[in-house]
């Protein structure tokens, strides 16, 4: 695996099993319009058989990012060393350009709720998470990126904004960010902050990757469902993001009601167009 492509640039998709046949047997080489893939790490840790064969065949054709959902960086449970070993073994095999997880916790007392639960945005949380990011980066031998999750509640004890929390965290722990533009929009709507303040407040030079996804607007709150196309206001916010940050590897996540690849690639072309326009507009 010496000839693998190392860097992430351009526009990618979350790799989902229903697309394996089209990607691997429907075409030779790369699918037009897809520059890279992101895989859910947990789906391939200690896994073999057809899923791993398919994954490695995709890896031969595309650069990759690894995205985890169970690191539980904010939990007060001890870090799961077995999990970190598995994560490192997978990273050694895939040589991903980015290894990411979420700013969240997923369970306590040994239980995993398999959800991205919100942390109180306090100095206590900040110190706790920064310390653990350091341990994870030592265990993996590389930097990780943390993603802003969609949240539905905030805590009485919150004393920091999420963007200040992330700024302090990246500086203190020397880690990177995965910016989910849809999640900024969702959380801004749910909690009544200004998404522009968020964009202005995060350290742009730490952003390694961008996520886009669809959501479900219930009138008084938005749920991050990943089951629909990206909505126009999120596209606008994406343009704002690129105007501020310059070009960033960007991908679309779809986890339910997964359409044929063509449909997602068409949506991805919109990201490409908007990004190009934003970069040109910012330069003018």
């Amino acid at each position: 695996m010496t000839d693998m492509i190392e860097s992430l640039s351009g526009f990618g998709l979350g790799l989902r099993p229903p697309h394996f046949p089209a990607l691997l047997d429907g075409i030779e080489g790369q699918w037009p319009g897809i520059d890279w893939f992101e895989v859910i790490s947990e789906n391939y840790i200690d896994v073999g058989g057809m899923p791993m064969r398919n994954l490695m065949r995709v890896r031969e054709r595309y650069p990759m990012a690894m995205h985890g959902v169970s690191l539980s960086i904010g939990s007060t449970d001890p870090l799961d060393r077995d999990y970190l070993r598995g994560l490192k073994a997978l990273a050694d095999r895939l040589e991903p350009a980015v290894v990411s997880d979420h700013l969240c916790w997923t369970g306590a007392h040994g239980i995993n709720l398999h959800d991205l639960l919100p942390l109180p945005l306090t100095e206590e949380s900040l110190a706790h998470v920064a310390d653990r990011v350091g341990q994870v980066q030592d265990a993996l031998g590389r930097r990780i990126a943390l993603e802003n999750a969609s949240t539905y509640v905030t805590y009485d004890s919150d004393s920091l904004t999420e963007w200040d929390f992330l700024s302090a965290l990246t500086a203190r722990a020397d880690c990177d960010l995965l910016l989910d533009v849809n999640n900024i929009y969702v959380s801004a709507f749910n909690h009544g902050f200004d998404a522009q303040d968020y964009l202005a407040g995060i350290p742009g030079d730490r952003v390694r990757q961008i996520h886009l996804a669809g959501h479900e607007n219930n009138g008084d709150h938005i749920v991050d469902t990943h089951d629909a196309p990206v909505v126009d206001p999120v596209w606008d916010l994406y343009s704002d993001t690129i105007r501020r940050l310059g070009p960033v590897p960007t991908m679309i996540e779809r986890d339910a009601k997964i359409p044929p690849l063509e449909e997602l690639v068409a949506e991805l072309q919109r990201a490409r167009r908007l990004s190009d326009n934003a970069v040109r507009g910012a330069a003018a």
Partner: protein
Amino acid sequence: MTAELADLQSMMQDRLLGGSDAIAGHLAQGGPFLKVYGNGYGARLHEVMADVFPGVHALIGDDGFARAVQDYTEAHPSRFRSIRWLGRDFPAWLADAPAWRGQPVVTEMAAYEWALSLAFDAPDRDPLPIEALASVAPEAWPGLTFDLHPALQAVRLSHDVAPFRRAAAEDQDPEAAPPKLEVPGVWAVWRDSETLIVRYRPLADDEAQGLEAVRGGGDFSALCEIAAETVPPEEVAARAAGFLKDWVDAGWITGLGGIPEAVLPSDR
């Protein structure tokens, strides 16, 4: 009063697992939307279980399955990093649950489906080449032990669950419940090492016992002792060797053990 991180997490988790509402007193905003987390949790567990156990789902219906999943996940919340392990204890739980333990076809289906799931994506191991057996010195044979492929599973069945399961997994409504097998026994479920497709076949009783012994670290002489209960003495060695050849051919064996240094081929 502000609660510390660990307390907030305990309270939040308690709420999502259906317990106390104490966390509501520590929220600044979004109390009504706690349900997003709660609903998401239940829906996610159900989705994963329905994906792994379509046969059980079809057998006991939507309501029965929803109830079984809810009761099971209450008793066995996930302690796994990957949610694909969620169903690990479901077959044993069903076999013991008052609502289902009188229905062996349900618990057999669950065990079969879990075996399929493990066989599908268990870690890869290189199968032992058949030549490796030929190079074992005669005096090493009695103490020879065998490493089994992690994808190889054994399930005891008294019903013909496979066709029903196949139909259920393909979303065709299976017509009738799985009939009783003419000969109940142990079935092997494994993954073909070339195609990676999951396969299954019934085992003769002594073959099943032998495989179980080998899994527990039993050596070739233990395999012979088991075969001796089925065939006359002069056929024992051939029967045990025949099992072994079939297992190696199917890729079930990945390594040999119990060979004293002195008789390792490289030392001769």
